[in-house]
């Protein structure tokens, strides 16, 4: 309960700061906002057209990645599981890179989110299909197939980037997308992501009880009347929606889907009825705070993706050392 309140307060604080901090002083922005809301002007407004959409995207992405990670860690009963384990993020990423290469993103703003989500779904389908072809969909097979497909996709993406290495404008576009940035986010990005996040989160919240039962083991869950195959498939679909939406809106945010569920689980325990809501709040709060930090300290060399990866990596190492020390003490 305490951690819930802490993350809610952190989220509230970072939301306020996100809306307040900007190059234009808030007083001027606020007056213009009032005018816009009263219909006096239709001018572009920093609060309504940049800070607010950015905030919504940060909340959606933080919540999406944290919940996606928590769901996958729970389904695979593996604390190292993350959205990349099934090749979902690699599939979305490769699809976006292909779109950039073919310059299809210039046709319509919808092309980028569609490709990210489409890529995520396609790879999920391929991994699932291949696993079923091997005879059913046991978790080990899913993980191994996912890792194999993910490696293939990463290799293919590297091949594409190597082939187009002379096209520096393309390479720069991909690099800017890959590092995950909140610069220039608009309502277009919100519209890309929000419906996917709503469906994905609702799906994950709906199956919280089933996830608790499935944590006891597949056989046990079946005995208790859970349709394991159906629930698992639907949860995978929800994860693909969440990851695809995040990729489309912000780009790659590494380590977030791996580390944040860890923190949440340590604070809240393994009861998914509490864990998933905590992941939503904590994910949104942490990602929004990271963005506020970048802006407050004017860290132009760091992007949200790289800051998340650095912070996540350090935290993960600390976590490993701590658990190693604990096990040594027990012995």
């Amino acid at each position, binding site marked *: 309960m305490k951690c819930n309140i802490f993350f809610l307060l952190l989220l509230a604080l970072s939301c306020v700061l996100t809306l307040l901090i*900007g190059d234009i002083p808030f007083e001027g922005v606020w007056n213009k906002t009032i005018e816009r809301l009263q219909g006096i002007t239709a001018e*572009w407004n920093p609060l309504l057209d940049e800070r607010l959409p950015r905030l919504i995207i940060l909340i959606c992405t933080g919540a999406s990645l944290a919940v996606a990670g928590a769901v996958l860690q729970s389904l695979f009963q593996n604390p190292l599981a993350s959205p990349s384990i099934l090749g979902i993020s690699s599939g979305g990423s490769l699809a976006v890179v292909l779109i950039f290469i073919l310059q299809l993103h210039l046709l319509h*703003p*919808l092309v980028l989110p569609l490709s990210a989500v489409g890529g995520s779904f396609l790879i999920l389908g391929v991994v699932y299909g291949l696993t079923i072809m091997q005879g059913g969909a046991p978790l080990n097979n899913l993980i191994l197939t996912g890792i194999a497909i993910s490696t293939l996709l990463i290799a293919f993406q590297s091949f594409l980037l190597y082939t187009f290495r002379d096209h520096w*404008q393309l390479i720069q576009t991909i690099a800017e997308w890959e590092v995950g940035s909140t*610069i*220039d986010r*608009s309502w277009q990005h919100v519209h890309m992501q929000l419906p996917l996040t709503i469906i994905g989160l609702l799906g994950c919240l709906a199956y919280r009880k089933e996830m608790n039962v499935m944590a006891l083991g597949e056989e046990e869950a079946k005995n208790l009347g859970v349709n394991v195959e159906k629930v698992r498939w639907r949860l995978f679909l929800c994860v693909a929606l969440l990851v695809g939406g995040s990729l489309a809106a912000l780009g790659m945010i590494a380590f977030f889907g791996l580390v944040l569920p860890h923190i949440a689980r340590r604070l809240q325990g393994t009861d998914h009825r509490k864990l998933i809501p905590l992941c939503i709040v904590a994910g949104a709060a942490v990602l929004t705070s990271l963005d506020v930090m970048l802006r407050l300290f004017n860290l132009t060399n760091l992007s949200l993706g790289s800051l998340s990866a650095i912070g996540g990596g350090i935290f993960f190492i600390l976590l490993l050392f701590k658990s190693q020390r604990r096990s040594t003490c027990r012995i």
Partner: protein
Amino acid sequence: MLYILTIAFIAGWWITAFKTTTSSSISVIVPLNNLETEKLIGYLSPIQREALKEALAGNTRLMLQLINQWETDAEALTVQGKQNIDKLPSDKLLQATVIGQLIRDSSPEELQRINNELRSCCVTNDCGHSICANKISMKLLPQTDMTAGLLLALCDPEEIIALPSGIMNSPLYSNKKIANIQSCASKLRSEQLYLLSPDIACLAYYTHPSTKELYSNLSISTYTTKNLDSIHDIQNTLIKLGHLSNHPLEATLLSIFIDSALIAIDNRITALSKTPALKSTMYLYHHHHYMVPTNKCLSGQLMNRAVSKYQGLTCHIPDHDTHWRLPISQETILQSNPDCLLLASATPIATEALKETPVFILDEYVQDSPNQYIVLAYYDIFQALAAAHCL
């Protein structure tokens, strides 16, 4: 049913949202190639982009013709009572005239001999190492776009054994010359290099150590360049490459031409600003998001130069020692409230913050050319400013 409802929800949301947002976010985009800004200052000779490009590609006759034309223009501007009109120093003008005549009147063999007499056989590269070359006809291997662009303007195609693939596919360089150079520098393997045996390879400071070792093992001299962070750096490298490749006269003439062209454009901007119509402008790059060039970047320096010539004009170019570009938010763009946007981008992307502001699209490839084509970049900036001045 659940799946259909889900798909319908997402599709419905997207269709509703994107149907309304796409049409409302378009700024006034002005393509540069349709502008006829020369009519603004009718008593001056027109600077044609194609002529400028041809001269920069190494046409010495055209270089001399344009230099003389611009000198006459500077005189005309002074007669018209315009102040702060610059002219090429008289010693440089004389030097250009003499070199131009020498190149025009000499046969290729004679020119080669004269060049060989005038050249310094040893030059120091950007890493402080001395490289000596004494052959009359050199075989050169430029590994970087920067040196390849310069050498293409100075040398005959037979003297260049391979080009970087970026240059081979670029519309900026003369197809006739490139067609005669078959090899792609990045695809040359050690045995091919041994067969082609270039005298000098032009490398970048970041070239992989194993590649440098390979050249050393094959006894190929290497000329290493660092980043060219200013026009002076470009001219310095041009002169050094001229001496190395036995084309010091051509290199000196091109260097003077660069000065002359920049001064000619400066004068046109100065002439325009006598009736100032612009107060502020902004220069941006766009790939996945907006970036602003710093004063370390060549385009940032060019923009500062243009702004200093146009009375009362401001442009946000941040100072930075290590970064060429910095990300910029639409909020900052709005705060600057520019009269026009100069957008160096491969694609015309508009900013939502400034729907009414005219946006001039500049060719990013030209804008980022770290060689003699930087003059063309300055010309494009002038074209955009002149067009914005008229609006």
